[in-house]
């Protein structure tokens, strides 16, 4: 029995479906890609990849980023071409940043996201961005010798800390597209020489799998508020004889479907925003604080209205208001779920905004 058991266990390995042992690869011969940009190209798709800054040898002498570009009918075709362009083995396992060109986003992103979901080396954990007013290739190449990976990582971290646009992974966007039919993702645009290589450019909104449009400025702030993650924002409020600067520190948004006689009659979006006084000359008194709160309520309501107006115009509930309201009224959600897009476009949401200024 003692000898039979291991034999049986070894035979059971044949049933696992593993066709063989994995192939070894030496890391020293690898070019670890960090950033990938995908555009529409003449042959189909154009893929640009960058390694980011590389160190060579123990002393870590700086070596410029390796940037490769290839075209193909499909992503896999372009990826194969990339392999032939490099002296090293091009390894896609470390691609953390995926940039999509505006044209490609307009034509549809499913092919790219699907490839990321299925490929052995790539994964849906990569951060996803849309490049405005330029191609993804231009954005990737904008980093020069240093690459753009560092800048994108900074933007992602800033987004997590609430001081930049919300970063989203390819997996989050793909899930939203599949579940809600729309999704939002941060947009970038190449900077000028005096500025950083890539600048924030609001949010891109996808409907179906194509680009519906961009939300900028107050619209972008409104979208952040709708998803309950407002980024830090300084709002000046004019009081008698002085300007008080208020920082938005947090927020929470709930939504519910209004029903009457069992029929859905409306959508209420309730936002609770927290803020702190950032700069002032004299401590505002209670009345002044009330004034500040009223002003902030007005500003945030305007932002929300702007975002909602635009999203309703596109019929894209990328903030997931419908899905979130379904939790409180599942029966009502069942009525409108099938054609939520039309409902969302036709319903004028009732906004309730409350601002709390914390000490």
């Amino acid at each position, binding site marked *: 029995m003692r000898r039979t058991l291991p034999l049986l266990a070894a035979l059971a390995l044949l049933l696992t479906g593993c066709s063989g*042992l*994995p192939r070894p690869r*030496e*890391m020293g011969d690898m070019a670890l890609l960090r950033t990938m940009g995908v555009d529409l190209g003449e042959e189909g798709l154009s893929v640009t990849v960058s390694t980011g800054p590389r*160190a060579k*040898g*123990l002393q870590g002498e700086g070596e410029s980023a390796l940037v490769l570009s290839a075209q193909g009918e499909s992503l896999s075709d372009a990826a194969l071409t990339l392999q032939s362009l490099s002296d090293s083995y091009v390894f896609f396992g*470390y691609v953390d940043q995926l940039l999509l060109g505006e044209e490609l986003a307009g034509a549809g992103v499913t092919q790219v996201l699907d490839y990321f979901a299925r490929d052995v080396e790539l994964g849906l954990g990569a951060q996803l961005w849309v490049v405005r007013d330029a191609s993804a290739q231009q954005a990737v190449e904008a980093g020069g010798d240093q690459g753009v990976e560092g800048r994108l990582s900074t933007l992602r971290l800033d987004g997590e800390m609430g001081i930049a646009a919300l970063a989203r992974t390819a997996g989050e966007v793909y899930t939203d597209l599949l579940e809600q039919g729309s999704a939002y993702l941060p947009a970038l645009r190449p900077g000028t020489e005096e500025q950083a290589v890539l600048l924030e450019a609001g949010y891109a909104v996808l409907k179906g799998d194509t680009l519906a449009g961009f939300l900028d400025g107050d619209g972008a702030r409104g979208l952040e508020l709708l998803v309950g993650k407002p980024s830090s924002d300084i709002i000046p409020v004019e009081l008698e004889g002085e300007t008080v600067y208020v920082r938005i520190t947090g927020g929470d948004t709930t939504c519910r479907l209004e029903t009457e006689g069992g029929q859905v009659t409306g959508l209420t979006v309730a936002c609770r925003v927290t803020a702190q006084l950032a700069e002032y000359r004299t401590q505002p008194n209670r009345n002044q604080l009330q004034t500040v709160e009223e002003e902030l309520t007005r500003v945030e309501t305007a932002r929300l209205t702007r975002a909602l107006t635009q999203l309703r115009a596109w019929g894209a509930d990328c903030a997931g208001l419908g899905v979130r309201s379904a939790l409180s009224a599942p029966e009502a959600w069942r009525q409108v779920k099938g054609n939520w897009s039309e409902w969302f476009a036709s319903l004028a949401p009732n906004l309730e905004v409350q601002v709390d200024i914390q000490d």
Partner: protein
Amino acid sequence: MPHRDGGPHPRKDPRYDMPLSLENLEEVFSGCVDYMERRVYLNGDRERTTTVCYLLGMTRNERVSDYILRPLAQDPALSRVPEGELFSHLQYGALYNLAALRRDKLDDVVNDLILGSCALFFPGRQDVLTFPVPTEEKRGVGEPDNEPALKGSRESFVESIRTNTAMVRRHLKAPDLKIREHIVGRQSRTMVDVLYLEGIADPETVERVESRLDELDIDGVEAAGNLEEYLTGNLATPFPTMAFTQRPDRLCQALLEGRVGLMADGLPLAWMAPGTIDQFFRTSQDRAYHWLAASALSLIRYLCAALTLLLPGLYIALVTFHPEAIPSKLALSIVAAKQEVPFSTVFEVLIMLLAFEVIQEAGLRLPGPIGATVSILGGLVVGNAAVEAHIVSPAVLIAVAIAGVAGYTQPSQDFGNALRLWRFLLAILASLGGLFALALGCAALIYHLAGLETFGVPYLAPFTTGSQNLRGHPSLIRLPLPLLKWRDGAVHTKNRRNQK
């Protein structure tokens, strides 16, 4: 261990099948320069003589002179007592020695002489008297080199088995401490003692240990392996299945847990049976430190065992087969360091592991100061030079060094050696099939350990319920001593509770 009566070299019993006589004894010891005889007139009476036989160096000369020869030569009663009562007169008091044994077999007399007795032969008698007067030349009781104590007893076992049993007896003064002696070795005739606490140790385990000792038919017990490998019978495993200690207090703790102790004359250590895996992670100081500190150290030792076992294999698997599992910044460093190294990662790791063993072995074999120099030269200078010359990458050096140093945290060097062997095996497996093969290797290791058993107790008993016996306490950590109310060592002890 089956006794091979029909084998090519059957053990003769009795060894000397001849009548007991002075002539036959002389024949047995012919060619032995240390064999001595002296004919003595009892109280100067030429009609009454005896022959004193002994082995020079095995007996203590002062005792032979004072306790045997002086009374024989000077006691007037010896010339007056009737001829027929002379023998019993000497046996029961005329000589001052602590013990006097009447022997009527040549085998017994030969054995007594070898163990340091002197024998008295009387003309015309078929029996002799033997008096144990062994020499007590031995090393003084020193500090245990391998198990140093910061808080606790500083005595260590020595080469004399009787001194060792006395040290144990001084710790455990109960008469329940039983010490049974067995003679092992055709040529060495080594005394091997079995120690246990009656009423606490499992009688079945004691019986198993003793029967295996009796079945041992070897030439001599000159090294620890002579007992370990024969007694446990687990030859296919590199893992030690009997823990040993240099410290009497640790042996006593094991006896109190219900284990059986084993000592051999000439070896300054004692074994504790049955051996379970948790014993090899414990130190004698575990009970001396605060329980929180002891528990943390115990966990670190287990962690280090995993580290020393898996780290080289994991490094190979991740760097060669699954680079995507390495954090990106670490991967970039590895790539940068690896670029100018001409060898494959597998070769690098295996060579470094081998080099580590070579340096360690060289350091051990050389005398102390030179050994330390070789270690420094090998470890620091050559290692640093190899990295600077791009022969090995620093990441490999760090991985191998961490694995090596983690191995030194093991209290049992035997267990550490077994981990080192398996480390090579797992590294080779990882180089063949990455994490998949590494996981298979780990499964094989667990399977191997689960199959081990010593004296009826599973090796992994502390972590299994296979023995159907509740364990006394968790093995990964050490609970406060007032909570350790159950004995842990014996499987079928009659007395499991060790405190109120």
